[in-house]
């Protein structure tokens, strides 16, 4: 049995017949071939699969593709606009916020959601917001700095 879904991903409309048990993350990775969204665990703990579902950071392994029917989704592949990287994408390079890069898309999507809600987060607020995203390489320190850097950059852009 399969079910038809329609979703908008990074601005493009898609329609597919999917098995009801297909997780959204596998729909993105295996059907749409948007492989920037990663799978790091099977308990919705690690955050490597974080995307934006209707504008909110969501672990895409926690929901089924059929539940996303009619939703608007953004993945890491959709973060750059008109060829220009999102301030967080720039910041992670500037502040050495990544090493192996596997957790990075999820970190950026979660951090982007934080900065939308709270444009000037404290160090503690950033740490708390990223508590559901595991990184085994960086020790988190340069990820925190990346988010601070991006927050400042977004603020400057708004002022200009």
């Amino acid at each position, binding site marked *: 049995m399969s079910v038809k879904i329609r979703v908008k991903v990074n601005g493009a409309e898609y329609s597919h017949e999917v*098995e009801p*048990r297909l997780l959204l993350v596998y729909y993105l990775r295996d059907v749409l071939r948007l*492989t920037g969204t990663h799978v790091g665990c099977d*308990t919705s703990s690690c955050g490597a699969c974080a995307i934006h579902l209707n504008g909110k950071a969501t672990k895409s392994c926690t929901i089924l593709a059929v539940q996303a029917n009619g939703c608007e989704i953004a993945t890491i592949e959709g973060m750059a606009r008109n060829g220009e990287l999102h301030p967080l994408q720039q910041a992670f390079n500037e502040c050495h916020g990544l*090493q192996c890069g*596997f957790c990075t898309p999820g970190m950026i999507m979660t951090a982007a959601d934080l900065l939308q809600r709270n444009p000037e987060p404290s160090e503690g607020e950033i740490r708390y917001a*990223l508590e559901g995203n*595991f990184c085994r390489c960086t020790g988190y320190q340069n990820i925190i700095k990346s988010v601070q850097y991006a927050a400042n950059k977004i603020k400057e852009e708004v002022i200009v």
Partner: protein
Amino acid sequence: MSTTNGLIGKSVKRVEDKRFTTGRGNYTDDIILPHQTYASFVRSPYGHAKIISIDTRAAKAMPGVIAIFTGADVADVNGVPCGWQVNFKNGDIMKEPKHPLLVADKARHTGDAVALVIAESKEEAADAVQAINVEYEELPCVVDASKAVQNGAPLVHDDVPGNTCFDWTLGNPIAEVDEAINNSAHVTTLEFVNQRLVPNAIEPRSYNSSYDSAYDRYVLYTSTQNPHLIRLLMCAFVLGIPEHKVRVVGPDVGGGFGSKIFHYTEEALLTWATKKIGRPVKWTSERSESFLLDAHGRDHVTKADMGFDDEGNITALRVKTFANLGAYLSTFASCVPTYLHGTLLQGLYKTPKINVDVTGVFTNTTAVDAYRGAGRPEATYLLERLVDLAAHEMNMDPAELRFKNFIPPFDGVKQPGYQTQVALQYDSGNYEGVLKTGLEMLGYENFRNEQKEAAKNGNLLGVGISTYIEACGIAPSAVVGALGARAGLFEVGQVRVQPTGKVSVYTGSHSHGQGHETTFAQVVADKLGIAMEDVEISHGDTESVAFGMGTYGSRSLAVGGSAIVKSIDKIIEKGKKIAAHKLEASADDMEFADGKFTVKGTDKSVSFGDVALTAYVPHVYPKDLEPGLDFSSFYDPANFTYPFGCHIAVVEVNKETGKVVLKRFVAVDDVGNIINPMIVEGQIHGGIVQGVGQALFEGAEYDDNGQLTNGSYMDYCMPRADDFPMIETATQVTPCPHNPLGVKGAGEAGTIGSTPAVVNAVIDALWSGGHKVKDIRMPLTSERVWTAMQSPNS
């Protein structure tokens, strides 16, 4: 050769970042090949069980199922080998029971593979796994190494008596050490567990193997730290297929920390199976499988005694360790508790007599092998806990006790290297330097006053020092060969100058987060005086890289970087001949700097780009010189490198709940010369958080039935962003005297130094409140710390 454009030593931003920040990395699970099939495994739910029967009939009839294989199908295939031979004290070779690709007789740990299902989709493979009926007869389990050697313990392998893989000793004769301990004014004794850890690279292991019958060639994509090593082990030792017909690619790899060094059964099994079914087979581990299958780390049970004279000088060290190897011998399992642990027990101290005795033991648990630091964290933990506890027992300052016992500074050039009692010769060191800097950064004296004030108010503050040394840059092949390594540990670096002067570099090192594409390019661009954009670093593909031993043991820059420098030297030497011919001068009169070949003492010069073009368009060219500008070098190091440092932790312990909060962490690391300070600092941060993870959060727990009771991220406590303060780092530079870059390696330092610093800090906090606790078993959970405070001795 002169440094030419100042790129070495700069915090250049990483060139590899963009593909990762935009979601365009290429990890093994991202690859789907034409006609792809998917694998899933039937795995033993028991820690130890006889396989009575396997019924695959229903599963075979299920939709999408292509093939099902069991242990009987691979009975004639070799198991995966061990790469390091350790001998028993009596000279007998260690016990190496077969690690089969699928078990046929009995399962020896939870997760042991019983059957392989290949289907059209992941879901269909998983469905068929559920339909396979295996009848088991449960057997008694043993999970603890010190219990497994006792009479009557269940045997993991029926032909390995006492579950003993080897017993091994190193250092001074035990009688001499016993005597020195007995004659000591003070002896500090510690019995402790260095608990088992799960590496937890965030990318789960993934393999995709294919066979092309038209060309009789295999391609294996694998999440590995060392593609050539995997190819060699799989072809020559397991499957008996010709190495030149197999391409192994380690594309982007999402962290390794040791766990992706080893040749795992699934790599060989998928490669065996792809030829059987004639289609590519892919398997990606689920996280719950990773917990049960990726080789674990540490798991030592140790008793150690450190003797002191009446002035606090260390007189002797005696160590007895039971090292848990798990159910099977993983690739480097035997060398980790021996040659990477026993050899580091000199530490930074002048200890005149040392004896270490290690028994390697099989149990009904996941295999244990190298995990970030590999043996050196265990050695450092042992030494630094003992020294710190001794200071508390003797009512001395822990920093002062260390200063008193440090080996004095030596540069390895004017002063010779330091010969230890445990086989190694340290290259260069300034140990008091890092401790002095660390104490200054912390404000040590002020802290002690603050601690006293806090104690008056009933608050428990503690400071913990750890000073470490490690052996990196693994390793001189002849030395490790004499110690039992079954491979050389050199590295390969090819530098191919293209006709336009652009440079392609092929390295046998493998980056899975270390940033080689940046650091190595800095080295090449600097040495050749060209722009970094003109250099590209390639790694991870046996098809393009001549050979390689891969990345582990903080070896990439010290060994892999040195191989590249060797090739650059050859390029410059040949370039001088080409340039001299163009300028009608003698090659001996040429010098190379700032990207130009110049006739010494003149302004006559020719650019690097010109020389490159001439090498490929050799119209006006030296008579006896080959065209081209492309050199490959093998670099075999003269010695290990010995990074060292000082880590200091400050903690607050809640006396009502036992909860530990890490307030500050100061790290001063000496990793020799530094190519990219930003990348080194990143390595240190990550290592420290992993090491603190061991001290405060992590630990694999088995019950008596061989069940891993915390085998998921819901149960195994990973360090998280909100567990840490900002780490304060500094570096000291004592160059390595024996490699061309003077580098020592920075990958494992953080993990090695940090764990005992945190535990020492907690013990120090408890002593400040009058709780004279000797040891608390890691991880230091609130419950364990609280319980320690309630004990009558405390």
